[in-house]
């Protein structure tokens, strides 16, 4: 199954994501979830980025938090709302909201 997961909080959700098995996994960082794509704690990036998955971050939610593309980890693709709609319909069959 191709699973798209909206991560909308920064608190660690690693355990939950660990329990998700999918043929193809996409983590879409929105709202405060965008910090998974930008923040380093003690020099280390978010453990979520160590998952075998495709990573996306919503440009608008980066901007409202004063972040830019330059702040984003290079494993993460910056997307807009139109891209998110396309991901939902074309790339992932089931959608999960964490």
């Amino acid at each position, binding site marked *: 199954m191709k699973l798209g997961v*909206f991560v*909308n909080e920064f608190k660690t959700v690693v355990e939950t994501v660990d329990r998700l098995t999918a043929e193809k996994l996409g983590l879409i960082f*929105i*709202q405060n979830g965008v910090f998974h794509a930008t923040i380093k704690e003690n020099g280390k990036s978010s453990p979520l980025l160590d998952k075998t998955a495709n990573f996306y971050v919503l440009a*608008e939610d980066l901007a409202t938090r004063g972040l830019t593309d330059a702040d984003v980890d290079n494993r993460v693709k910056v997307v807009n*709302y*139109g891209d*998110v*709609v*396309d991901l*939902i*319909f074309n790339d992932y069959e089931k*959608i999960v*909201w964490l």
Partner: protein
Amino acid sequence: MGTLTIAPFASLVGSKSMDFALKLAKTAADKGHKVNIWLTSNGVMIVKANQKHLKDYSHAEKYVKELLEKGVEVCVCEACALARGIHKNEAIEGIKWDAMHWYLAKIYNSDRVIHMGGE
């Protein structure tokens, strides 16, 4: 094109999820997809008419009306609304009032479903 059903449980401002749901619905509708929105739990609060649009403050009425004009079906859980003292005669015109079976039927007939948790 496909059909997308979104069910935001969160209230306005509380967790920004409602903002995201409304913007995603608009984008999907603009791309030609059929979109349904099921408002339940604290999400029902956005059906009240005459919301004042304050600068830099989440606002829903304008977006809901815009979505209705685009043909998005917006339905509110009647039980959740009444439980919060929200009645049909003070709601935004064009919003359907129904029960959980509306949502289940939409889920069954949708290509994608996003069930957004509450606060």
